[in-house]
């Protein structure tokens, strides 16, 4: 970070944060809409679905989490699932800790950490210079609103939607996952093989007798670790700082 860049921090206001968060908000609304539908299909109330989105603000984690919950799994399994699936946020928070205004007080860091999602992180890192506290608050506020409102809307609308529409919306979250994974796999040899390993591991765990008795949460954990560790051994990355 050079000194000239840090001067831009002043223009990164709360209002600018809200504006930069708006496209994320719109995207989140459409994706969380299908999360709301999923929750209702799994037997949860719209209120519960909304609470989950408001308190977690994480697509993949919530998606796996509700399945683990409804399988009546242990707390350990639920926590482990979140740890593995959301471990990427640890790396993002680590990168973000270098990007926020130096000397930011701990109470502000505690708030900034709440909604450090993939997209919010990406936008924050895209700015020149250090990002101040109020900008981060604005940048997180609109997406949190979109994520929660979308979930509630989806959950409430679910009962009103005909079966064929609900069926079609069931694939939306997976479509988003594919849109994240494919470009990475296309660009990076390591990521390509990680995807191949993950498919192989996941299919083995769900199809092979005995292995398929492992609960869904642990299947995801095991497949993720196997593929990520294999990728790390075979294709170690040079320097991942700031590109998680």
């Amino acid at each position: 970070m050079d000194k000239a860049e840090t001067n831009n921090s002043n223009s990164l206001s709360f209002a600018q944060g809200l504006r930069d968060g708006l496209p994320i908000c719109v995207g989140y609304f459409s994706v969380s809409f299908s999360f709301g539908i999923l929750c209702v299909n799994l037997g949860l109330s719209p209120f519960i679905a909304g609470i989950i989105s408001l308190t977690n603000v994480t697509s993949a984690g919530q998606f796996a989490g509700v399945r683990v919950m409804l399988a009546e799994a242990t707390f350990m399994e639920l926590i482990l699932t979140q740890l593995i699936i959301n471990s990427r946020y640890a790396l993002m928070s680590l990168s973000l800790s270098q990007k926020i205004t130096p000397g930011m007080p701990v109470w502000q860091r505690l708030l900034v950490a709440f909604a450090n999602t993939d997209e919010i992180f990406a936008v924050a890192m895209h700015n020149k210079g250090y990002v101040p506290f109020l900008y981060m608050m604005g940048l997180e506020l609109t997406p949190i609103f979109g994520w929660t409102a979308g979930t509630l809307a989806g959950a409430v609308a679910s009962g009103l939607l005909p079966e064929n529409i609900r069926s079609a919306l069931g694939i939306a979250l997976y479509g988003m996952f594919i849109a994240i994974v494919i470009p990475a796999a296309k660009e990076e040899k390591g990521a390509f093989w990680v995807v191949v390993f993950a498919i192989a591991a996941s299919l083995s765990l769900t199809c092979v007798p005995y292995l398929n008795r492992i609960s869904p949460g642990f299947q995801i954990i095991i497949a993720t670790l196997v593929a990520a560790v294999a990728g790390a051994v075979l294709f170690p990355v040079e320097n991942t700082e700031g590109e998680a």
Partner: protein
Amino acid sequence: MNIYAYIAAMAITTYLIRMLPLTLVQKPIRSRFLLSVLHYVPCACLTAMTIPAIFSSTAGIVSAAAGFIVAVLLALRGKGLVTVAVSACVVVFLTEQLMLYL
């Protein structure tokens, strides 16, 4: 078990993952292996969650497969999240309507 206890456990875990590095860790990670694992976790995890679950995410495996193929093709062409997700939904819907008349 109480649903709120589950939600609290999930939310607190997720928050701690985001909060601890931001408040406690002052120096960057040095282990190349650990950095590499963390780097590959999103791809590995999203893939494991998608395959094979996507094929049972709709009313039938045929419409799900159609949606899957279209999503992969669009993603390969560099289309954005919302475009890919919405297109997959539309294809699933159209496939299921078509199948009604076959």
